[in-house]
């Protein structure tokens, strides 16, 4: 599987986790999108560092070829999946803790 396809699967999996499996529905909250926008700015900076300095290099055959701040656009999907999965679990565990309170 190419990185392109895997990154789309990664986003789909994260949406499934958020909307169905854990039911946290973060993608319907402005708190999530505001936080994601902030993280995205820093992702572009750190990703630019990692790819601009060739700390990480990508196989041209595994990506579409479009780049943003040195990094392949697939990294945006990778990053979105990482952030959404993380915040979905964080929210889910927080909800369980609230339920456990007397």
């Amino acid at each position, binding site marked *: *599987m*190419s*990185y392109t396809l*895997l990154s789309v699967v*990664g986003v789909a999996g994260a949406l499934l986790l958020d909307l169905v499996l854990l039911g946290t529905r973060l993608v319907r*909250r*402005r*708190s*999530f999108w*505001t*936080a994601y926008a*902030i*993280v995205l700015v*820093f992702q572009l900076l*750190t990703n630019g*560092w*990692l790819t601009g*300095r*060739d*700390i*990480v*290099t*990508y*196989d041209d055959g*595994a*990506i579409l070829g479009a780049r943003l701040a040195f990094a392949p656009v697939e990294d945006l999907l990778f990053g979105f999946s*990482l*952030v959404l*999965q*993380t*915040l979905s*679990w*964080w929210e889910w*565990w*927080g909800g369980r*803790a609230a339920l456990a309170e007397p």
Partner: protein
Amino acid sequence: MRHLAYLAVLALCLLGTLPLEVWLGVRVYRRPRRLLLTLLPVVAVFYLWDVYAIAADHWTFDPAQTVGLVLPGGVPVEELLFFVVVPTCAVLAFEAVRRVKGWR
């Protein structure tokens, strides 16, 4: 110093978000159990993705700009740390937005 190039950016992420915990009081590091339970499945999923991507040559790492400690599956230790640091920073940002804006 060049071998610290990847590690340095992760350290900056942690340092840069530390004020959110210390001064804004978002209470992320002060809920270590919840943070750990959040990180475990995320690290597992993205570590496996990394192992696959490295095996399939989707991406490669510059040995001169990493510390040289390579984990099972050919994963540089910086990658494992990335999957801990970046999610932690995302949680800090999320809690900061909720605290400042009063949104749920």
